């Protein structure tokens, strides 16, 4: 989970290019068609540094769609499903790893007298 912006581009295994959407910060993935998708399944997955650099360069062309593009590891699961490749990316895809505070107040945590 090294700061992605500082990664030297070494590609080991499968990677995709990800960023945050400008308007709302949502996690987006670079597609093969040169667009962005909020679904990891739509990501263009590549395996070499030149391919990844090409994706990044495409991503950097316009900075009004998405910001902070970087190369992130992904895993190809069974049936060709694309899965996040590390904890940071799992959290970006699946959300925080604990239950979000509920709107209803939690029950009293005091022990009975």
């Amino acid at each position: 989970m090294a700061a992605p912006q500082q990664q030297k581009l070494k590609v080991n295994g499968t990677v995709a290019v990800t960023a945050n959407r400008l308007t709302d910060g949502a996690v987006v993935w670079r597609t093969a068609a040169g667009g962005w998708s909020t679904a990891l399944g739509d990501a263009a997955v590549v395996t070499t540094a030149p391919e990844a650099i090409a994706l990044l360069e495409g991503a950097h062309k316009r900075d009004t769609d998405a910001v902070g593009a970087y190369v992130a590891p992904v895993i190809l699961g069974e049936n060709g499903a694309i899965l996040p490749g590390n904890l940071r990316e799992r959290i970006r895809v699946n959300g925080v790893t604990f239950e979000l505070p509920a709107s209803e107040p939690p029950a009293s945590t005091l022990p009975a007298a």
Partner: protein
Amino acid sequence: MYVYDEFDRAFLAERVADFRDQVERRLSGALTEDEFKPLRLMNGVYLQLHAYMLRIAIPYGTLSSNQLRRMAHVARVYDRGYGHFTTRQNIQFNWIKLEDLPQAMADLAEVGVHGIQTSGNCIRNVTTDQWAGATPEEFDDPRIWAEILRQYSTFHPEFTYLPRKFKIAITAAPKDRAATKVHDVGLRLHRNAEGELGFEVLVGGGLGRTPFVGKSIRPFLPVRHVLSYIEAIMRVYNQFGRRDNIYKARIKILVHEIGAEAFAEAVEAEWANIRDGALKLTDEIIDDIRARFLYPDFAKLEDQPAELTAALEDPRFAAWYRNSVHKHKVPGYSIVTISLKPVGAPPGDATADQMDVVADLADAYGFHEIRVGHEQNLCLPNVAQMDLPELWRQLDAAGLATPNVNHISDIIACPGLDYCALANARAIPVAQEISKRFADLDRSRGIGRLHVNISGCINACGHHHVGHIGILGVEKNGQEFYQITLGGRADEHAQLGTLLGPAVSYDQVPGLIEDIVDAYLELRSSPKELFVDTVHRLGVEPFKERVYATH
């Protein structure tokens, strides 16, 4: 509490309009991200893992009930129904959209609340004691001076693009609840032998990658000179602070590299030129700011009223009272801490409903006023003791009466890798698991005061260096590991913790903390010796021996 006047309100409206324009220019492409980022940061807007985050200042930790209600409104309308109180008297909303931010800010500005200078390389929200104005210990209300500094530092034309961020904290009590020794500038208000009010000035404290305890550069600065002296410090820093390396750009590095003495000389030389200039505070100016702080009309009451004595027969109430209620300067009143650390919950989070409950309780029992402390808890500073039983019942019903203030489960934690783009490891789930292990309040009472601080990376937003037990998340080969330090403290005896031993994995942390506590219970000279004092008496070695033997 300080009341914003039409000037403050006009400024806030102008700031919102300015930011709205900046967002529009960003969305249109007229501003690049590189150009926009410092502008959004100076309005408290970060881009985190999943979304934008808005950080709102709670100047000197003081909120009105209406301001808190408006925060609940922002949480509901623009976010996901909750907010997170931070270690620097701020609140953060984690899921806000850039498109919605100008309107959210306009809603907040209506009640005098904003995110101005909660981030960016400028003078940040000036923090102080959450008990200000209520504790019998203080020499003066530190918020007067925090407000004078807030106004001075707001959109300062010379100090808006500093080498790095700049944090000032003030304490007016000998007991330091504002962590002044680990701030870029710490101001310690006291009276000299002649009874004159002044500040001891500390510089170059800070945590992060290179932690330092601040150094005193002036034992006594008469209060009327506070702005000119701060300006002198800022001017020396702005010109000579390092800009070649972001990790060496804080004032602490400058002070360390040239030495506190040389730094003090440079400041004094600059100050000599400006001390009697436009920034010198006249009594009239000080009195004017002071007059804008309105204090409750306290009734003439006795301590320990019958309502309180009767309620103390209920052991649950008594447990809360002994833990969360503190001495007030006015007879018949108390300061009440509201724990935002229910066992197993994210530390410092409050739902919109809870914010509304606290706001209503502040209206009913607390003269409309709420405080926020750096320990990520809330506080009602002015509660009549006869109202304590009813206040407790309502807090309890809202899940806000966990009597664990200053206990091991009152954990300070940053958002960590679950939210933060800078983090290397998670902090919140670690805190949740530790607090579950110590859910038994009799056990945690027996352990006594013990501050656990968790940071998810070296930037140290969880202040791990100054936790009695500090936990720092690091990353090794794609896995989360945690370094443990013992013996840190953030108070008037501020000290950095000592590394206990090799980092342990995520799953090992809660067990390790239990072992450390068991070692303490075995090693302490008596139940009166606090954890941190045992560590100072014995060093970390006896802990290390016992803890690592079992792992």
